[in-house]
């Protein structure tokens, strides 16, 4: 029990930095916004990346799950176009839009590490 508490974090624990989110914002505008909307609200072809529908899809899963979804299938017309670092930056931006707090360390690019960060509603 104690071990679990030490090795798992949640999106509320400051898991990315503001600078990383800023880099991600530029990447988002150029690679994601045409389908998911400039305010991440989604479009006819793509779901929103913030708000109720988004959180219902991802609450209970991990940042690693979301990272893998992005990494393996996005952008839809060029999956794999972005590097792992860039995917992590975009993810940091998405977390910032959903108002998860920034922290001191950047979001990692290893799926295994990200899988230890839970996505959950505000405690």
């Amino acid at each position, binding site marked *: 029990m104690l071990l679990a508490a030490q090795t798992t974090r949640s999106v509320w624990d400051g898991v990315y930095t503001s600078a990383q*989110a*800023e*880099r991600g*914002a*530029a990447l988002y*505008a*150029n690679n994601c*916004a*045409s*389908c998911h909307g*400039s*305010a*991440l*609200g989604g*479009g*006819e*072809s793509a*779901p929103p990346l913030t*708000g*109720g*529908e988004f*959180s*219902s*899809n*991802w*609450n*209970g*899963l991990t940042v690693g*799950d*979301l990272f*893998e*979804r992005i990494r*393996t*299938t996005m*952008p*839809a*017309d*060029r*999956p*794999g*176009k972005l590097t792992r670092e860039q995917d992590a930056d975009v993810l940091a*931006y998405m977390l*910032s*839009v959903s*108002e998860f707090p920034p922290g001191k360390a950047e979001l990692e690019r290893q799926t295994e590490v990200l899988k230890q960060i839970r996505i959950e*509603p*505000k405690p």
Partner: protein
Amino acid sequence: MYRSVLLACITLSVYGQQPSTKSGEWPYYTADLKGTKYSPADQINADNFKQLEVAWRFKTDNFGTRPEYKLEGTPVMVKGVLYTTAGTRRSVVALDAKTGEVIWAYSLREGNRAAIAPRQLSGRGVSYWTDGKGDDRIVFVTTGYRLVVLNAHTGQPVSSFGKNGIVDLKEGMVSGTGQQIALETGEAGLHSTPLVVKDVVIVGSSFKEGMTVVTHSNTKGNVRAFDVRSGKLLWTFNTIPRPGELGNETWENGSWATNGNTGVWTQMTVDEDLGLVYLPVETPTSDFYGGHRPGNNLFAESLVCVDLKTGKRKWHFQVVHHPIWDYDLSSAPILADINVNGKAIKAVALPSKEAFLYVFDRVTGEPVWPIEERPVPQSDVPGEKTSPTQPFPTKPPAYGRQYVKVPDDLIDFTPELRAQAKDNVARYKTGPMFLPPIVGDSNLIGALTLGTASGGTNWPGAGYDPETHIVYAQANQSALFPISMRTPPEGFSDIRYVMGRNGTEFRVSEGPGFGSAADAPQQPRPSPAKAAPAKPTAPPAAPVGALTVQGLSVLKPPYAVISAINLDRGDLQWQVPYGETPDVVRNSPALRGMNIGNTGQPGSVGLVVTKTLVILGDSQITTTPQHPRGAMLRAYDKATGREVGAVLMPAPQSGSPMTYVVDGRQYIVVAVSGGAYSGEYIAYSLPTNN
């Protein structure tokens, strides 16, 4: 008893009869040719629904170069075999209906032709044909718009059909005044299932998304019939009438020649006995600007009845004149033999994004209850000439919200939430149904419409009980859709207005699944010269005119509803919220301590009607005290709308469910996907010891 009756029926079907829901099969996308989605199967009922277990599951990841997250197929089931499409390659698979074991799989490698197709991903499924003597065929349309006929037993193309089993559907598709489109790169596709009736295959057509089009003169829609044995073209119905054809004059200034689209992208239905086919036609180019096509634009957004043998028009009814709202006719027309005031009527009922059920005598086209032309708001977008009136059915009543009535339709859990919602909505033009698009600016950022692009009943359609004459329809009534038009950037398009707002960065909108075919990556569509790299923007936590307040929709619940509509009386028998309250609402700090009841959840899904139940799944994942994280497949009592059971699915329902009976056991199969969960067909049945 149940089992022996059923076996007798199956035996009959093997000897020359056509497959049928009466023998436990599900031989068409919509269960039957009448579009009912009805099966008389009754082993699964209100008492035992919650005992359902997963009988088998079929993951579609490897039917393409990457997983699909938008699996929309509905299998057909004939003689113990399930046939459907799967994966980003849009492969066809035959599965053992009892175990899910793969019997065969077929795919066509279409390269760039599929990668640039306007309708990608696995599509809605396949169709079945039999001569009743052992020549059994599977008919489907590839991502690259080829009609393929396979031997149902082997999965091999039937070489006597077309060229080695294939008819190239792009041959005969034209733009302008009749210019053949390029076979490789020309714009045309389809992801509905072909309509197979007698020895005829009827296919529609669909095109790219219509929000930011590069030309208003793109490919013209049509509906064509082919001989199922030879692949020979039998007839073509021009949904944009040519000179000399009825309706050509509704494209004023000769604009028939310079506009496209107007296909049929959803399921069609047919009355075999009357020999009449019912075509639900979509929007012309573009979805939201009609300035290059003055007039009513027949047969856009019309229900058209044509002769099965000749394709000649028998009657039509245009449900939206001069369409500029993307109210594409979305759903299979339902054939219903009803009794109104003691009079028997062969009717056709059309569910819609408008949440109107349009009901006609299907022989004559006369509305069963009067449909009135009423004045509607007029457009002030330059060059646009809206129709002064639009049709409004007087019965049955609308079965979902049709526009945003301020303030009545706004969130009212607390006065504070309503006040915030009013403030946000004040940034939009609001008004009654058929509120036209505006040229938005920083002051008024768009026309706030509801249900236009994705509301009411969408592509999965509705269902119907032929015994009780009741239509069951799910309707999304929270699909807010702000529409603002802008001039396109220099050189992008020949159309005067595209979707967007002047003064903001122009973005090209892509259609569903675009770029996700197995053969993508690919070149993106032509886009305007790139502006300077976007600057990091401040997180848009509360953007101006947000359609949410404190994370909640500005609209009040229910967010979606299920309705039972009595077609003998033309009224609503019952209406209940669809699904259950989303997590974001149930856990909202703004609502803490309040009893908010069941708000339903937004979304547009298909359903199955059985002897006693209406069955449909959630469109959202929830985690509640009653169930772990997942989406529920739910059964509702047909008589009352009361939920009588639910079973957990790992992901939202993304395809319309179906049901069948094999060897005395009833199954329900549903396609699920979304979020982190890639496409999967799941079969549920009762425990074997039940």
